[in-house]
C-alpha cells in the first residue's frame, strides 16, 4: 500500500497464564501472527466472535500492550522503539474510543474537565482560556450543547456519553482512532447517530479508523476494507462490498449467514446456520488451520499446515480450499 498510515507486521500478542506454580508456563495466544495495513483516511473494519482477539489487537496498536513478536509501524516508525517526545507525539495522534460509555468517563469530572484534560497533559494551546474555547468548539462538533460543559457524566444518556468520549478523543487532533465496539452498547436509533458522527469527523479532520465490532452490518456500512478474525488470526481481508457479496473463507461465510437481516421475507428463506460448536480456547489452538474443528469443508491437510493469507481476486484469504 502506497500511503499506509499504519502497518501491522506479523504481530503476536501472548499472555502468560499459570494454572499452578509447578505447571509448565502456558501462553494464551490472543493475537497470533496478524499483518495488515490501514491507509490514510481509510476505515478498516475488524470483525469476529468474542474471544477472537480483535480488542487485544486494537490495544496492541495503540501500545497499551506490547506485542510478544512482530512490529507495528505508525507513519513508518516502529512504535515499540518510540521514546520521549516521539512517544508523546504518537500518544497524541493515535487515540481510542471505548465500548462502554458508562465506564470510560470519570464520574467525578465535569464534561468540560474531561475534554480539557488531554489538552492540559499535552500542553496544547497557549492558555487555559484557549483550551476552554476549544472545548466549546468540540462540544459543538459532536452535537452537544455549550451549557453541557459544567455537567457530570451521570446526567447524560448512553449516546450523549459516547459523544463526550468522542469529543475527548478529538481534543488532540488525532490522525488514527481505534474504535473498539463504539456503538454496541447503544440503542439502535442512537447507533446511527454515532456512526454518522464518526463519518462526519473523518471527512472533516482526515482521520483513519480501525473499527472493531461484532455487528457486521455496521462494519460494512462504515468500512472500506474488512478483516475477519478467528482465534487470533486474520482469515480473510477484502474490500467491504466484495467480502460481503463473495465471502471466500468458510468462517466468513458462516459469520455472514448468521447476521439477522431486518427483512422477514429474506429471513424466512434463509437456511439454518451451518456452523457447529463454539470457538475453541485460545490456550489450546487447534493445529494447522484454527477453524478446522468447526469447518464444514475441513480436509486432512487443514490439521497439518496453517494456511497463509494468499490473494484470490481482490481479497486475501487464508484457506487450503484456495491453494494453487
Amino acid at each position, binding site marked *: 500500500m502506497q500511503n499506509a498510515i499504519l502497518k501491522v507486521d506479523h504481530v503476536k500478542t501472548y499472555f502468560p497464564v499459570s494454572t499452578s506454580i509447578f505447571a509448565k508456563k502456558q501462553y494464551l495466544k490472543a493475537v497470533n501472527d496478524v499483518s495488515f495495513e490501514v491507509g490514510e483516511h481509510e476505515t478498516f473494519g475488524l470483525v469476529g*466472535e*468474542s474471544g477472537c482477539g480483535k480488542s487485544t489487537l486494537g490495544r496492541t496498536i495503540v501500545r497499551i500492550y506490547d506485542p510478544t513478536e512482530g512490529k507495528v509501524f505508525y507513519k513508518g516508525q516502529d512504535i515499540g522503539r518510540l521514546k520521549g517526545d516521539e512517544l508523546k507525539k504518537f500518544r497524541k495522534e493515535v487515540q481510542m474510543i471505548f465500548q462502554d460509555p458508562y465506564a470510560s468517563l470519570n464520574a467525578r469530572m465535569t464534561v468540560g474537565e474531561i475534554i480539557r484534560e488531554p489538552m492540559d497533559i499535552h500542553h496544547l494551546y497557549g492558555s487555559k482560556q484557549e483550551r476552554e474555547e476549544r472545548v466549546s468548539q468540540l462540544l459543538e462538533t459532536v452535537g452537544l450543547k455549550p451549557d453541557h460543559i459544567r455537567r457530570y457524566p451521570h446526567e447524560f*444518556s*448512553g*449516546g*450523549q456519553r459516547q459523544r463526550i468520549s468522542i469529543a475527548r478523543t478529538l481534543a488532540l487532533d488525532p490522525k488514527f482512532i481505534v474504535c473498539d465496539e463504539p456503538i454496541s452498547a447503544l*440503542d*439502535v*436509533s*442512537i*447507533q*446511527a*447517530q454515532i*456512526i*454518522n458522527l464518526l463519518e462526519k469527523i473523518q471527512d472533516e479532520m482526515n482521520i483513519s479508523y480501525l473499527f472493531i465490532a*461484532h*455487528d*457486521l*452490518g*455496521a462494519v*460494512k*456500512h462504515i468500512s472500506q476494507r474488512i478483516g475477519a478474525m478467528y482465534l487470533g488470526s486474520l482469515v480473510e481481508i477484502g474490500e467491504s462490498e466484495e467480502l*460481503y457479496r463473495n465471502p471466500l473463507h468458510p468462517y466468513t461465510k*458462516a*459469520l455472514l*449467514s*448468521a*447476521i*439477522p*437481516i*431486518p*427483512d*422477514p*421475507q*429474506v*429471513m424466512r428463506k*434463509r437456511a*439454518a*446456520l451451518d*456452523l457447529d460448536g*463454539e470457538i475453541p480456547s485460545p490456550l489450546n489452538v487447534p493445529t494447522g488451520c484454527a477453524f478446522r474443528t468447526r469447518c464444514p469443508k475441513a480436509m486432512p491437510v487443514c490439521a497439518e499446515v496453517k494456511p497463509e493469507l494468499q490473494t484470490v481476486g481482490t481479497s486475501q484469504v487464508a484457506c487450503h480450499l484456495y491453494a494453487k
Partner: protein
Amino acid sequence: MSLLEINNLVTSFKTEQGKVQAVRGISFSVEAGEIVGVVGESGSGKSQSMYSLMGLLSDNGVIEDGSMIFDGHEISPAKFEGTQTEWEKYMEDIRGNTISMIFQDPMSFLNPVLNIEKQLCEPLIYHKNIKDKAELHKMAVELLTQVGIPSPEERLKQYPHQLSGGMRQRVIIAIALACHPKMIIADEPTTALDVTIQAKILELIKKQRDRLGAGVILITHDLGVVASTCDRVNIMYGGKIVETGTADEIFYNGMHPYTQGLLSCVNNPEAEDHKLRPIPGSPPDLLAPPAGCPFVDRCEHAMKVCKLYPAPETRLSETHKVNCWLTEKGKI
C-alpha cells in the same frame, strides 16, 4: 380466547424525583404457539411491562390500572380474586411453571455456587413435586439434550463459570422449559451473545415453541432478530405501544413515523449504498411524559394536535393498528 390478554396496563415507579410513568396503558394479546416481538429502545417500558405481568416489579413499582388475563385467570394484583398473600402464592405457582422467563444476562441469572444439575432440577422439585433422584437426573439430562448441549452428563456436574456465554444461555432456556410452560417470556435473550450463537439460540427458541405449542413474547431492540423469529410485532415508545401488526405489515408497511425511523436507521447490509438516517434527539423523560404523542419531539411530521392529545388507534387491518394523528387524518 387468547392465552394472554393485557388490557390498558399502567405501571409507574415512585422515585425521589417524582413518579416515573414507565408503562402508560398498553394492550395486547398473545395466542398459543405464536411469537410476539416487543420492540423498543431502553426506557420504552418493554421490560417493565413484562415484569408487571410476572409480578416481579421492584418495591417502588405499582400497577395502577389494567387487567392481565393469563390462561383464563386474572393475575393483576388489584383485580385478583383473593388476598395479597393468595396472589403472591398464585404467582409463585405459575412463575417458572406455566410462565417462564429467559433473561438477558445468563451469568447474573445463574447461581454461581450451585452446579447446573441443582439449578435445573429446582423448578421440577418445586412445581412438579418430583423427589426421586434418579428420575430427576434423567429429566435433567433430557432437558440439556433438548437445548443442544453436548455431553450433558458432564455438564450437569459443572458450575456456571465453566460454561461459555452461549452454553449458559442454553442452560437458562433448559431451566425455563423444565416444567413445559404455556408461555415463555424472553427478555433480550441474545443481546449478550455473538451473531453465530444468536442464530442458534433463536432457532432453538423457535423449535421449542413448535414442540410445546407455547406462546412466546420476545423483547428485543434488534429488528433483525424480530424479522427472523416473530409472527407479530408491537412497537413500543415512551411507555406506549405506537404500532402493532404482523411482521410483514410492520416491515413493509410500517405507518408510524417511529417505526419508519427505526427501519431506516438500522444497518441493512443487503442494501447497496444505504444512507443511515438516524432519528434526531432522544426518548422522552418519563417523569413528565408529553401529553400527546410520546414521539412528538423527534417526529418530522409533528403537528399541533400531536402535542396536545394522544393519537387515537387507527385500524388498518384485522391485525395492523397504529396510533398516529397522520394516519388518523389520512395524510400518509
